[in-house]
């Protein structure tokens, strides 16, 4: 199979996935979303007013007419305006996505890099006390709730009971100094929370790769442990690592991190999504769900390409 055919197949399956996901999410929103007419109307609504609101929101239109309208919005990337704030959904996303990236991305990268480093150390000392200590710390880290880590970080770093070095919440970013001030604690929190999961996962992957024949051969040739780890084990473990990293990206870009954004008062996409769920702001929800699906399809395609780059055998069976 040529690379072109492989990519085409991936894109086709991605398109099918996209239609399935959007249809499913649309059905869920239409039939299981909270009724808007009762939240939009004030006190003492009459039956006539309720009907009038339903008409205004096209809730009385046939199902497929509404679904086709939704697909049209998706294709044109024009999701209209938020029912709650009246702002264009596009401008809401344009405002919140960069904030989420700025707040969440450093913690995500740090958590992965440090996790990978610790995993390499643990894999290298497999079975030894260093390995056990790192794994014990990882399991402990995985066992602690994110909210507990947030509270400990806020008290320890942002309150007079601790070091009181950073603001406890907010996102009043006017320059790089402000950015460091407001992003540091969320970054550390995210990194700490992700570290346990990442270290454990990466160690498993690396240990498996280290058991391969070519590693034994490399050892027989007298390669140094560092060279074996960086030159042979790590490149061969890149497929699961890449998969894990890439498939997290859409969640960061479109979903953000609700808990982090909520506890640290960061007006990102996670907070926007949560508010939209609570108020059944369907234009926003449709945009977030659809764009997440689109991004997943893109990631799927990119990861397929990367697999081929990392391991050319995949496209030449």
């Amino acid at each position, binding site marked *: 199979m040529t690379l072109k055919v492989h990519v085409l197949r991936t894109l086709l399956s991605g398109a099918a996935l996209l239609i399935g996901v959007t249809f499913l999410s649309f059905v869920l929103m239409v039939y299981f979303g909270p009724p808007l007419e009762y939240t939009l109307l004030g006190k003492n609504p009459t039956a006539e007013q309720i009907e009038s609101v339903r008409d205004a929101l096209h809730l009385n239109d046939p199902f497929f007419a509404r679904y086709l309208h939704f697909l049209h919005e998706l294709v044109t990337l024009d999701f209209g305006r938020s029912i709650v704030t009246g702002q264009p959904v596009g401008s809401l996303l344009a405002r919140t996505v960069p904030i989420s990236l700025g707040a969440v991305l*450093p913690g995500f990268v740090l958590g992965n890099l440090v996790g990978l480093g610790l995993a390499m150390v643990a894999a290298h000392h497999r079975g030894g006390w260093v390995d056990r200590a790192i794994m014990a710390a990882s399991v402990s880290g995985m066992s602690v709730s994110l909210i507990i880590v947030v509270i400990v970080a806020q008290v320890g770093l942002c309150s007079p009971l601790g070091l009181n070095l950073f603001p406890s919440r907010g996102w009043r*970013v*006017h320059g790089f100094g402000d950015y460091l001030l407001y992003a540091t604690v969320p970054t550390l929190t995210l990194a700490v929370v992700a570290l346990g999961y990442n270290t454990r996962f990466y160690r498993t992957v690396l240990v498996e790769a280290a058991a391969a024949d070519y590693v034994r051969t490399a050892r027989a040739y007298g390669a140094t442990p560092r060279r074996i780890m960086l030159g042979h084990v790590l490149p061969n473990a890149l497929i699961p690592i890449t998969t894990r990293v890439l498939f997290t990206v859409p969640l960061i870009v479109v979903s953000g991190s609700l808990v982090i954004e909520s506890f640290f008062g960061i007006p990102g996409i996670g907070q926007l999504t949560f508010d939209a769920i609570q108020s059944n702001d369907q234009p926003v929800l449709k945009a977030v769900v659809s764009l997440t699906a689109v991004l997943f399809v893109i990631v799927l395609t990119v990861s397929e390409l990367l697999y081929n780059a990392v391991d050319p055998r995949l496209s030449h069976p």
Partner: protein
Amino acid sequence: MARRAGYEKGTVRRWRTVVVAAVLGGGLAMALTKCGGAPDEKTRVLRHSFDEAPRTLDPLRASTVYTNFVLLNAYDTLYAYKYLARPYELKPNLASAMPTVSADGLTLTIPLKPDVFFADDPAFANGKGREVTAHDVVYSIRRHFDATNLSQGAWLWRDRIVGLDQWGRDGADENADIAGLRALDDHTLQITLTGPFPQIVHTLAQGFSVVVPREAVDTYGQELAVRTVGSGPYRVTAFDSTSVTLERNPRFRSEPVDLDYEGYDAEEHAGYNLDRIDGRSPPFVDRIEIDFIPEDASRMTSLTKGDEVQVARVPAPLYENYLSSKVPPSLKPAYAQDYNVLGVLEPGFLYHSFNLAHPDFGYSDDPEQDQRNRALRCAIIKGFDWPTRNERFYAGVGQVFPGAIVPVSPEYRADADQTSITHDPEGARRLLAENGWTADTLPPLVYAVSASVRQQQLFEQFRGFMQAIGYPREKIRLKQYATFGDLAEAWKLSELPLINKGWTLDYPDLENIFQLFYGPNQAPGSNEANYQNPEFDALYRQASVMPPGPERTALYHRMNQMTIDDCVSISGLSRSIIFMWHRDVIAYPDRNIVGGHWTRYADLID
């Protein structure tokens, strides 16, 4: 070996690229979020906190305490509530005097202050705010009756003002006149009512009634949900899901504070330094930053940090951390030096209404069954343990009272009969037995809540109360709705036997509470209990057009007793709200009824 070294270098290069990309990505994202320059350090900033976020700043949807709070800072209302007077008292705000009312009570003439200007905004010609006129008031109220606007506030004036409803039904023609809502000239408004409605003045102090210029609506349309163009003391300069920033409106009129007129009491308000604002013209701070912090621990961390939030509501689960006593609230020594504290009762209540349209608990065409159902409701009321609910869920600081006359109202009587709120499981069991109710014949009782742990705990406690009066455990059933909207729909459609909810007074007049039991307001209206009592309805119509006084109070008490005798609801409890704020903030931060009006008087001790 050279090939291996190259492989290794390639790997290192790849990871280096990842690191650089991440740093650049973070930097880029930071650059994208960068907005404006750094704030001036000398700016005097009041930092407040809300325990929930306002979803919108559109006056058409000012249905929450939080939206209302912000709107009252950015816009003007014709009337407002005095800062410190309790019971609450109205005063002119944009109006220059209280209305002149015709002899028949149907025509109100309201004079407006001259030389009041909207804040400068690009919506106006040359960006310069123009004078506020009576035409703007007419425009702002009739916006609610344009069906395309989906107003949540039209109910305040529905069927009250001559021609207004019909204007909306006729298509809301902007050029058409409305007979009952006219600007006689730039500074005189005339309202003609369809019938006596003394509460109209209260409606003109609500966030729904703020004065919006037509230019702003034409320019920004739906985006008025996130920006403001008003004539209030502040204007919104930033608003998102986590905070709102208001800057002083430099064109706000000069109106020196008369503390005595505002209801100042040297003894009651001692320690708050309020005397420092007497005779000075607000607003006193340059900027108000309000953080929306629903998480209790985060909010209190921010408050006690010292350089962040200065005013916050103390959450009930954390009272023990900060308070040495709860009623009245006083702070622990560690906090008493640096903070003020204030406890106020909410202008509303929590209650459970029976759905009287429900066949198992409500009215029946069979007189005998009707009587049995009433006995069943009365027994459930007797079995409900209000003191325990208050202690477990509201830290014991709420106030339990009989019926619907809330403690903050002037009509409240502490010596009223307490039978309907006295826990009497023995009496309940007796009543059930006398009316032939047994474990086998008792109908299933569905207790519906929106999904949350706390709501489930409320159900568990309720089930415990009911088991104690002989209700089989399996017949007290929990029904969880995913969202409050789902639950509200079930109430409106009369699907549930019991409606457990809270009601906050829109304005301090019991008419606003008793409408909950007025027959014509039956579901989907606010009478979700579907209570039908012609005698009550007649008294409601009579009392609602009377001025405050002993005669009206007597009618309200009769109406209250009717709802108690008919066992319409398990009622009620008013929660206490405790605020804590830094001692260097001059304020009386009671947001009840007064709303965001208090922040115009807030100052800082430098």
